[in-house]
């Protein structure tokens, strides 16, 4: 089989991650954390190393007086980080065409 063909095939879910190496990906984590960054490495647990990461943390507070929900998002950038796989909910690679 042609190497190129082999590379494109998504036979198991982790292939989707393999195809995203060196691309910017979106990662949804537990406790309302989201990351966008370049995927440098990953393993079968979905531990990941990301670079040039933007982290968004969403918090909901209840106003003491009006009891209204206040949704806050906190953004920060982190040059390089390790994500432990057990916190990962979803990974979405950049849109690819064929």
């Amino acid at each position: 089989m042609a190497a190129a063909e082999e590379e494109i095939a998504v036979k198991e879910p982790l292939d989707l991650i393999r195809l995203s190496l060196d691309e910017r990906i979106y990662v949804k984590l537990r406790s309302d954390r989201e990351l966008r960054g370049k995927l440098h490495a990953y393993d079968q647990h979905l531990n990941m190393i990301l670079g040039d990461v933007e982290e968004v943390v969403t918090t909901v507070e209840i106003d003491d007086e009006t009891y209204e929900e206040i949704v806050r998002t906190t953004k920060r950038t982190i040059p390089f980080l390790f994500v432990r796989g057990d916190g990962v909910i979803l990974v979405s690679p950049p849109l690819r065409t064929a």
Partner: protein
Amino acid sequence: MSSGGADKPGSGGGAVKTPSDFLKSIRGRPVVVKLNSGVDYRGILACLDGYMNIAMEQTEEYVNGQLKNKYGDAFIRGNNVLYISTTKRTLADGA
């Protein structure tokens, strides 16, 4: 260990469908994946593995029945999965 009657073809009158039969039958089909958090993902199932890790296409994320996000491709880590459903039926809100 029993595997849902697969080792006993007689039981269940031929209608037995084990989890692995189910997984084989749903590739490429529209599915709803519900997570333990209550979030739903609707899309086309590309593939999955024994951990219930899932790769989906044309994925839509629903929180409390409302569309919140769309992803071209999505990988969902299996430990979060409550169920994978084949359905065209719509949600019905109870009282």
